[in-house]
């Protein structure tokens, strides 16, 4: 398992290939690889997004992501999983998050990747602040009506 939180821009495809080659040693039991990649859009609802800032809780976030991947390994019986998430300043088209899982069969890889990603979105301690060209404002989750801003 690999969990990484990065301050700088990264190449998600290179990271996945490198992990599979080096850490999984191209394990021949792997029959399925599933990848989710999230990137920064240049709009949110009716507003443009020029850039965003991502904050996290260093002592908690990495542990929480490890917990999500361990739960997915147990629940879906996948062989392994990887999560890389950006923090700091990002611009449209930059990768924000990559989730990759490896399993014997496709169903468990698809399900595990989705489970990890959905839990990450709703539970992992990260917060986005968007710059719409007029200033920064905090993003609110899609199902929240109590904070002033909208989610990307």
């Amino acid at each position, binding site marked *: 398992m690999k969990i990484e939180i990065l301050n700088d821009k990264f190449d998600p495809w290179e990271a996945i290939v490198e992990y599979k080659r080096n850490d999984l040693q191209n394990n021949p039991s792997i029959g399925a690889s599933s990848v989710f990649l999230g990137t920064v859009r240049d709009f949110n609802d009716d507003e443009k997004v020029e850039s965003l800032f991502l904050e996290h*809780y260093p*002592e908690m976030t990495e542990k929480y992501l490890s917990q999500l991947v361990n739960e997915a390994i147990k629940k879906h019986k996948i062989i392994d999983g990887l999560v890389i998430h950006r923090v700091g300043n990002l611009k449209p088209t930059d990768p924000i998050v990559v989730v990759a899982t490896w399993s014997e069969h496709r169903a468990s890889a698809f399900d595990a990747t989705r489970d990890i990603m959905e839990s990450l979105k709703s539970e992992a301690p990260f917060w986005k602040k968007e710059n719409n060209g007029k200033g920064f404002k905090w993003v609110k989750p899609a199902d929240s009506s109590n904070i002033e801003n909208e989610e990307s």
Partner: protein
Amino acid sequence: MNICVKYFASIRDEMGIETKNIQVCEDLSVNDLLNQLIKNESIARTALVAVNHKYVDRNFKLKDGDEVAFFPPVTGG
């Protein structure tokens, strides 16, 4: 007892402080602490709470040396 309180994201902006160490009485719950510290009702209602880097519910009882973090609903990914 002594505890360390941390605020993140919009709650930190609202509170105007990132971290503070405070003395509180024994047998204090997370909800008691939240009501003492955060006066904005909307923020208090939606705040998530972690103690020593793990999510806890509002009834969780604090102990000496705990690190309590208050933060808004998360928006990663």
